[in-house]
């Protein structure tokens, strides 16, 4: 009973947050058209980037003052010593933060070391040449990853306990998630990896499937975070797949890369570097695919939501709203599909690594 109430409260809160967000966006009506266009563009670009503070929504008040609603996150820097301070010192990237006699400024979502006035020096290609301290900050994306980690940990450990208590029968969330877990096992792992080895890889496949799925779903909520359109995150996921594939590769796997059986010797020499390159290209494609799909989806969706505010008439805005609604549903599908594709391809690569060739 208590849990039901908690779930209801959280749902209600989320709904309220979304209403407040939409309510606030009504404000900028007095601006001219081109101004609003650049504002929408800046908003989309801002949404795609990681940030040092958790900004739920922001608006410009009637007096032209920018208001932000959210909370700051800790900034952790290594710059000749550990520097920990709150990101509220940056004032949403507008001012220079002073810590122990050093000055830092946020420029294009990166922290640079500056002088007291916060001057950024540029080279010919307009890249900042200031010194960059090592950055271990808990940014919005890091916070989101931690949150998904916590959600998954509690959800699945509770599920495991309830299975133990009920003698292997699903209960609660287990009823919803059991078919998905079984699907990953029976339709993804078993056919691609093989009956003999699939058990070893189940934990990774399930983890990566649910992580990508939950993270993608959170990207569609009005909290406005998306982790998988950060290429560093997908790089790490792909790197884990690559490492597991490489370290579980058996004799046959390496033989097929360096000395392909059944082809003439000159071809073997040509094929070896191509195959070796292929082992790197495969996880690289995994990384790009997830990153690009989610980024493209978010850009399109947010542009169409932005069109609602650009049209400013019933017909255009109404049509944009309908289109955004349909696209949001499509994005729900894409969120699950990308998780599925990532898992299937990982399983496929593991399968290649452990395959045993008796035939030739």
């Amino acid at each position, binding site marked *: 009973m208590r849990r039901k109430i908690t779930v209801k409260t959280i749902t209600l809160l989320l709904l309220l947050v979304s209403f407040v967000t939409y309510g606030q966006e009504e404000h900028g009506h007095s601006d001219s058209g081109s101004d609003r266009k650049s504002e929408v563009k800046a908003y989309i670009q801002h949404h795609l980037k990681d940030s040092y503070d958790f900004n739920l929504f922001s608006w410009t008040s009637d007096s032209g003052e920018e208001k932000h609603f959210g909370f700051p996150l800790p900034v952790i820097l290594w710059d000749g010593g550990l520097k920990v301070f709150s990101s509220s010192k940056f004032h949403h990237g507008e001012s220079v933060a002073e810590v122990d006699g050093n000055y830092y400024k946020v420029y294009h979502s990166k922290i640079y070391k500056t002088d007291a006035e916060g001057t950024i020096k540029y080279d010919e290609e307009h890249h900042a040449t200031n010194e960059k301290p090592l950055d271990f900050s808990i940014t919005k994306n890091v916070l989101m990853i931690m949150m998904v980690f916590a959600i998954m940990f509690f959800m699945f450990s509770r599920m495991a306990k309830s299975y133990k208590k009920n003698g292997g029968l699903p209960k609660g969330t287990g009823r919803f998630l059991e078919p998905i877990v079984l699907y990953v096992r029976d*339709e993804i792992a078993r056919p691609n990896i093989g009956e003999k080895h699939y058990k070893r890889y189940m934990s990774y496949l399930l983890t990566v499937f649910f992580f990508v799925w939950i993270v993608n779903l959170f990207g569609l909520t009005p909290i406005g975070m998306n982790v998988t359109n950060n290429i560093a995150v997908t790089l790490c996921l792909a790197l884990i797949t690559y490492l597991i594939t490489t370290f579980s590769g058996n004799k046959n796997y390496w033989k097929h890369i360096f000395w392909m059986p059944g082809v003439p010797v000159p071809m073997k020499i040509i094929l070896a570097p191509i195959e070796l390159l292929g082992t790197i290209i495969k996880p690289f*494609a*995994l990384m*790009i*695919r997830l990153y*690009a*799909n989610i980024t493209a989806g978010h850009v399109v969706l947010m542009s169409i939501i932005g069109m609602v505010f650009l049209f400013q008439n019933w017909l255009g805005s109404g049509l944009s709203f309908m289109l955004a609604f349909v696209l949001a549903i499509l994005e729900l599908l894409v969120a699950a*599909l990308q998780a*599925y*594709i990532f898992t*299937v*391809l990982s399983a*496929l690569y593991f399968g290649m690594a452990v395959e045993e060739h008796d035939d030739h």
Partner: protein
Amino acid sequence: MEIPAIVGAGLVVIGAGIGIGRIGGSAMEAIARQPEATGKIQTAMLIAAALIEGIGFAALFAVN
């Protein structure tokens, strides 16, 4: 960003589009012929489409 690069990326995307279209069409035919194998055909179709899609995105990133 140079014009040949953009044109090249456009060609790659056209190629990827044709490829995914052919996969989808063939999968439809296969499902119509053997509706009981729908699940297996869909899985194979998605994997093949995802692989081609990767190439399309790679081209777009080469331009970026």
